[in-house]
């Protein structure tokens, strides 16, 4: 499903983002991306959503090279990916419903279709009764659930989550992980960058560990072993 072939990324200021990464992620897998700050986790996810281009190597998604996508093809590629951010990134002037809805509207869906999909996504994350609330009327956990609803509303094949529990207390973080696990069980591939050793150890999913841009560990059911924290 996702394949990094000898991927390197060097930034214009000379910083090495990633160094010769070779990794393959199968359909339906749940993969944790761990490592210290600056290890290359964000570079990895940004390359995957085609926000960055590698300096070297190739990235295949569903057998197709995303590094060769033309500018106008990028929006269509991204519709197949759900992205969840650490700081939720909701639009403050839109309600929970509207925040999720615009991800469907960009596809040109009818109003009825938008309503059906958004209602279902908000139901999946347990926010049926928060539809008309604005982000600042919601707790951190609720905001992240809105963000998850936005990420899953178009039923993407892949979800990329960048520290989705980073701003949440352990209890709320657990709730978010439960939702992500449910999504994964239904067949969605999830790549999640995280610092949270507790979550990684509890879940026993595959772990990719990065250090200074290099892949130093790939454990099928690894746990969070590194000495950072």
């Amino acid at each position, binding site marked *: 499903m996702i394949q990094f072939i000898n991927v390197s990324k060097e930034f214009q200021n000379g910083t090495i983002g990633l160094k010769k990464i070779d990794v393959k992620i199968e359909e339906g897998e749940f993969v944790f991306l761990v490592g210290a700050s600056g290890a290359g986790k964000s570079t990895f996810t940004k390359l995957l959503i085609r926000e960055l281009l590698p300096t070297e190597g190739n990235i295949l998604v569903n057998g197709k090279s995303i590094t060769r996508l033309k500018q106008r093809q990028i*929006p269509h590629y991204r*519709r197949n990916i759900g992205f969840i951010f650490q700081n939720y*990134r909701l*639009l403050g002037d839109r309600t929970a419903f509207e925040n999720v809805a*615009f991800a469907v509207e960009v596809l040109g869906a009818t109003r009825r279709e938008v309503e059906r999909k958004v209602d279902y996504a908000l139901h999946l994350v347990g926010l049926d009764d928060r539809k008309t609330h604005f982000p600042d009327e919601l707790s951190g956990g609720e905001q992240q659930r809105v963000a998850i609803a936005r990420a899953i509303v178009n039923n993407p094949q892949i979800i990329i989550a960048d520290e989705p529990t980073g701003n949440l207390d352990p209890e709320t973080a657990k709730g978010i992980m439960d939702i992500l696990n449910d999504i994964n069980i239904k067949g969605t591939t999830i790549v999640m960058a995280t610092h949270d050793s507790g979550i990684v150890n509890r879940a026993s999913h595959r772990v990719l560990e990065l250090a200074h841009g290099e892949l130093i560990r790939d454990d099928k059911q690894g746990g969070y072993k590194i000495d950072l924290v």
Partner: protein
Amino acid sequence: MILFRYLQYGFRDTMRSLWRHKGMVLVSVLTVATMLVVLGATVLLAANSEYMAKNMEEELEVVVFLHTDVSREDALALEEKLHSVTGFKGATFVPKEDALENINTQLDKTQLSNATGGSNPLPDAYHIKLEQMEQMEDAVAYLSNTELFPQIELVRYGQDVVDKMIALTNTLEIVCIAIVVGMVLIALFLVNSTIRLTVATRGEEISIMKYVGATNFYIRVPFFLEGLLIGIVGALLADGVLFFGYDAVYNYIGAQLSFITLLHNDQLLFFIMLVLLAGGTLLGALGSNIATKKYLKV
């Protein structure tokens, strides 16, 4: 069909955004309106100064008095020769009888008749109009040449008025250019800061839209419509201020300062209003385009 829905969603988002950012929208509308009002007012000021200068120019003339012994026949024959004056526009012959009649209407008839013993002491004269004020001094020098014009005894013109008028119109021209240049600079600054402010608040919105797979077109629609509406409303506001404001100024000056005649040209006013509307619309559309462009590259 998808395009129709894009426009439908875009229009709804525009309305929602205008409402939710009403403070900012108001600032933008007022910025556009203020700028256009001052620009329009400057154009009207320039048009009026030109109009007034032209009016005064038309009233200015060189008067030449002929020797009293010049026969009527020679006096009339002189007109042909006056055409050789540079910038000559026209000449009116005022026979001494008319001049006397003219004076009689202003003075007490009996007193003048008594003082002159019943005869007419006034000479025949020509009132000469020129194309431009600036040609007046040359014309006076030319007409004062007694070899060329032996019939002419005296040449008179309002030298002071001419000098002041030339100075005034030149100053007004410089002032108008300065105002326009100043306004354009202020306008650029205001529009730039308004756009920066918009970009700061909308940058996040645009980048999130990009992450969920929105095309540039989809992102642009509501911003474009919003900019367009702000520009149009600002321009209409400016048009209203100019229309009613000019009317009020025109009436006030007509009543209070009747020696000043302002230009009353509806066609020009409507033309300026139309240009401002087009300018405002363009400004709004371009502004939103600049504001979104920076963030569309994610």
